């Protein structure tokens, strides 16, 4: 077949793909008889109501000298690792506010960090395109730095996000500016699987975020405005692609039951997707009087899923009632809140505290300090 004939077939194939995508979009639209908020209202549900001093900032973790980009809690209750533009990972005891480790990274341009499930190691990655693993129990080297115990090399672009596989200190998933996600075997430093990439059914722009559920399933979010569901045993194609956002998907997080997940985007909205059907169950969007549409940088669900915490580029940190799709609190306007955009946030393992990280170089811990009513 000649090149010109191939090009004609190529154009025809593109038209067919676009046409099928439109048909899919239309089919899904016809199934949108309600959303979560309308359904919850029809069941008589009322929004969560916080008193003025219910959710409070109870700790400010100071020590970084640059913007905080990423944070992760341990599986046990109280420790956090954070990554900053100052080129360091800091390990904190969030309860006492003490720093237990300050790790100078081989490359200062770090974008992400993660705590291993056992709490014995941390990982950090960024513009050097590698993910560095540090064993917190290792002795310092001659320069007084914690040595790198393993370097995970292979990405052809920056490492934007990383997360350990639950209950498995030996496996980690990274997302990258090279449009792929990788499952790593930390013991060998080798790639077990590559998800996406050239000519595979994967993301078509930088991967920005990953969220893992169980040992076989994860979601990735990307600058191609989609989220994709992957089975770690099948790297050749995404199980499903979730459309709907009109801008980069900056953050993805599984809903506590593992059957749904949330996203946050440059289009200013958060969305709740259902994994089994692919439907958008709810859009969370706040209209602003000045017509601005601040980008969503980070999200986390409370342990029941009733609350969705969302950090925005303008410094807001909305607490959404996920059922009623109402913004019930803005941590960004509370006493002692951050003085800059919130870049990352996460819940402690028992759900009793939220940690936020910001361009103001601080981390803050938020907890419920009011009177609880028990049903």
């Amino acid at each position: 077949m000649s090149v010109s004939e191939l090009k004609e077939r190529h154009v025809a194939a593109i038209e067919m793909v676009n046409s099928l995508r439109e048909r899919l979009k239309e089919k899904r639209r016809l199934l949108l008889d309600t959303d979560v908020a309308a359904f919850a209202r029809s069941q008589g549900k009322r929004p969560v109501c916080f008193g003025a001093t219910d959710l409070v900032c109870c700790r400010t973790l100071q020590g970084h000298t640059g913007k905080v980009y990423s944070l992760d809690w341990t599986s046990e209750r109280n420790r956090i690792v954070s990554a900053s533009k100052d080129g360091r990972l800091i390990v904190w005891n969030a309860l006492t506010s003490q720093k237990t480790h300050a790790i100078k990274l081989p490359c200062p341009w770090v974008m992400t960090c993660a705590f291993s499930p056992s709490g014995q190691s941390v990982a950090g990655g960024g513009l050097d395109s590698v993910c560095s693993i540090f064993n917190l129990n290792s002795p310092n080297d001659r320069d007084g730095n914690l040595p790198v115990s393993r370097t995970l090399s292979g990405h052809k672009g920056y490492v934007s996000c990383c997360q350990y596989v639950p209950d498995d200190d030996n496996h980690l998933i990274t997302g990258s500016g090279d449009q792929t996600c990788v499952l790593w075997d930390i013991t060998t430093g080798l790639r077990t699987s590559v998800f996406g990439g050239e000519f595979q059914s994967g993301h078509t722009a930088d991967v920005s975020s990953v969220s893992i559920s169980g040992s076989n399933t994860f979601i990735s979010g990307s600058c191609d405005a989609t989220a994709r569901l992957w089975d770690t045993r099948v790297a050749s194609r995404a199980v499903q692609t979730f459309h709907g956002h009109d801008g980069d998907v900056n953050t993805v997080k599984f809903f506590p039951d593992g059957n749904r997940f949330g996203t946050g985007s440059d289009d200013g909205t958060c969305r709740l997707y259902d994994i089994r059907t692919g439907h958008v169950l709810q859009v969370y969007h706040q209209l602003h009087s000045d017509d601005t549409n601040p980008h969503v940088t980070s999200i986390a669900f409370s342990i029941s899923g009733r609350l969705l915490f969302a950090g925005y580029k303008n410094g807001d940190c909305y607490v959404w009632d996920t059922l009623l799709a109402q913004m019930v609190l803005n941590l960004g306007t509370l006493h002692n809140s951050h003085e800059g955009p919130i870049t990352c946030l996460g819940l402690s393992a028992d759900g009793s505290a939220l940690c936020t990280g910001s361009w103001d170089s601080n981390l803050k811990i938020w907890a419920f300090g009011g009177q609880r009513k028990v049903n």
Partner: protein
Amino acid sequence: MVMASSFDGQLVPQPAIGVGTVVDSRGKHRILAELKHLEQELRYLQEELEEVEKMGNISSVCKDLLPCIETKSDPLLPVLNGVVNPLWDRWFEGSPSSPDCGCWIL
């Protein structure tokens, strides 16, 4: 010719850069590979369309969500459907060794 995606998921053909017979040969292989990828994408989309044809409305999915949320005790909610765990309030008990450790990492 290469493809690019716009934000609404539509594919847009883009002109390739290059001249001469050597590039034509390289271009042919690349177009063949992209065509194969597109045909694969068509199959996946067809599968998804068949799945969506069998799906129920969103309301049937929403019914599952409520019990999922309401049966769990959530320490950050003002109203609980369960027992309070005293450890949740550790953030307000006593004072930490230094309330906000402010030592700077240099």
